[in-house]
């Protein structure tokens, strides 16, 4: 829902415009002074601001420059009581969206607003098509492409993002990618590990504290929220944030203002929030273990990172990337990867996801030390055991399956073209075996011409005798 702010000292005008714009399904707020209006602009995200020129505490025109400095600054429409040509020229030079007289018709206000919102939408979709910086996000699978599209969407606006996924899927990498691709990329990306912080420390770490706030507070200390000013605050494992802190944080998120522990004055911080969790937050909300208002606020856009077992086609790329990195940064002995090594990686379930895969590669390189090629024997025992057990199990179930299931190609390791080739090979072998090498019968059953069948026998090196 688009958000509109009206800054005008005339209460009647404010109320009329609020009523009109609410009918257009917009969220509308107003301020009667410039100071209050600017506070709202810098603490919330508005799409359009209707700004009066003569306000009791200042001139609206003088505030244009500072409003434009805001990340995702709103479009500005100047309202004036009298048609002032010079003022209109100045406003246009300051690149405001429009300049209208308060005496204008309802239609004039409405169309100016609609066009400003259309322009804003167009501006956002234009930036959403740009190529995004992926950082260390590796993979070409459909699942990863979907996540990257969400990263692109998330980096083109300033709303709170919730990233969920199992441990080790790389949630922090996605959070960093959103930050790196956003307009805040030149400022800090601050990590808060909610799971590591003891309950008595969370509040002072987040909000900071004043000297003497509690025993041991010998000096003022800046909190991480303030440190993330103009940048991004990443709340890792947000599900572990104590309920009482959630309440205080919610206010800081909405108002972009908060009071440090023991502090007398409120301070502001224009931060963007990205949270991550491996927990089922909606379930925690149902169980009253997580505040519902906080959940809805932090999850304006949700991104679900897939587990590695659901995107095994990315394993080869991840291995190559990690080994190249090791060679580059650690001057490590370069290793080649054998097929059976890779086959074992594909066969495993990876409960610890990408993190477990990378640790496994480190382990294998360490085991292989100066051997040029890595084999399955260099893998940790539990992965080899898993694969052997899976093979035995597969063999057993294969034995009990009808003939048509035998010799099926492993779909997770082959592209469609190779898979079809493999099945064709199996089919020709089967038909020759079934007909005991009788070419005429084989042609009849397979509906192949004699020439085509001979060509296939030659191609796959199969004897008909």
């Amino acid at each position, binding site marked *: 829902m688009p958000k509109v702010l009206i800054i005008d000292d005339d209460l009647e005008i404010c109320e009329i415009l609020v009523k009109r714009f609410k009918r257009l399904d917009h969220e509308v707020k107003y301020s009667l002074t410039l100071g209050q209006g600017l506070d709202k602009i810098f603490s919330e995200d508005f799409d359009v601001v209707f700004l009066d020129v003569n306000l009791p505490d200042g001139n609206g025109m003088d505030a244009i420059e500072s409003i434009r400095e805001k990340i995702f600054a709103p479009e500005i429409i100047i309202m004036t009581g009298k048609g002032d040509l010079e003022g209109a020229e100045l406003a246009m030079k300051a690149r405001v969206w429009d300049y209208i007289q308060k005496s204008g018709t309802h239609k004039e206000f409405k169309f100016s607003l609609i066009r400003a919102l259309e322009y804003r939408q167009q501006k956002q979709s234009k930036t959403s098509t740009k190529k995004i910086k992926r950082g260390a996000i590796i993979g070409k699978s459909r699942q990863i492409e979907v996540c990257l599209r969400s990263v692109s969407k998330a980096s083109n606006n300033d709303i709170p993002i919730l990233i969920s996924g199992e441990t080790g899927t790389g949630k922090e990498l996605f959070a960093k990618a959103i930050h790196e691709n956003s307009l805040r990329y030149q400022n800090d*990306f601050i990590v808060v590990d909610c799971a590591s912080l003891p309950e008595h420390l969370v509040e002072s770490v987040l909000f900071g504290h004043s000297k003497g706030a509690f025993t041991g507070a010998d000096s003022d200390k800046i909190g991480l929220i303030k440190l993330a000013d103009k940048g991004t605050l990443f709340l890792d494992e947000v599900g572990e944030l104590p309920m009482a802190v959630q309440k205080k944080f919610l206010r800081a998120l909405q108002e972009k203002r908060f009071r440090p522990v023991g502090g007398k004055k409120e301070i502001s911080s224009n931060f963007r929030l990205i949270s991550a969790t491996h927990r089922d937050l909606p379930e925690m909300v149902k169980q009253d273990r997580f505040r519902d208002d906080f959940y809805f606020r932090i999850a304006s856009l949700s991104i679900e990172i897939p587990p590695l077992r659901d995107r095994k086609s990315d394993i080869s790329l991840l291995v190559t990337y990690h080994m190249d990195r090791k060679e580059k940064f650690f001057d490590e002995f370069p290793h080649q990867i054998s097929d059976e090594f890779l086959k074992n990686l594909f066969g495993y379930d990876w409960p610890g996801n990408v993190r477990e895969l990378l640790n496994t590669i480190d382990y294998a390189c*360490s085991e292989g030390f100066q051997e040029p090629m890595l084999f399955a024997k260099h893998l940790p025992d539990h992965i080899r055991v898993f694969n052997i057990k899976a093979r035995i199990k597969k063999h057993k179930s294969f034995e009990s399956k009808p003939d048509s299931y035998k010799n099926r190609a492993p779909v997770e390791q082959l592209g469609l073209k190779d898979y079809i080739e493999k099945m064709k090979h199996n089919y020709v072998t089967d038909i020759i075996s079934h007909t005991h090498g009788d070419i005429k019968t084989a042609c009849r059953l397979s509906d192949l011409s004699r020439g085509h069948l001979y060509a296939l026998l030659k191609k796959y090196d199969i004897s008909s005798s």
Partner: protein
Amino acid sequence: MKLVFFIHKDSSKKGEILQKIINTNFYGTKCQIFRAFDTLKKSLKREIQLTENEIFILLAESVSRLNELNSFIDLLEGKRIILILPDSSKASLSKASKFFPRFFTSISDTYDDLCDVLNKIINQERIKLN
């Protein structure tokens, strides 16, 4: 669970205090202490224990030490890091944020908070293993 400390051999009194705290508070937890950059770098490359989670606690008792640590920040990518900073200045905090630390404190603080954070991480790891 393994705590990997970096306390440079020239880190003087603050380093000695931290060393004492490790000995008294983390008895029974696997700890390793590095006193030079070269040995720390080597350890980042070797000694891979698959089942072991490591936390790197890096003492930067001076701005120059923080800068030295910063020079091989790439090697620390993906590691869980706790930083002890020379001061709480905006410049130091901004440099610290590039390490994406799980927690940071400064040398002027007591190490009480640091111990609380480490104990919580160690306990969580124990719960996970059980």
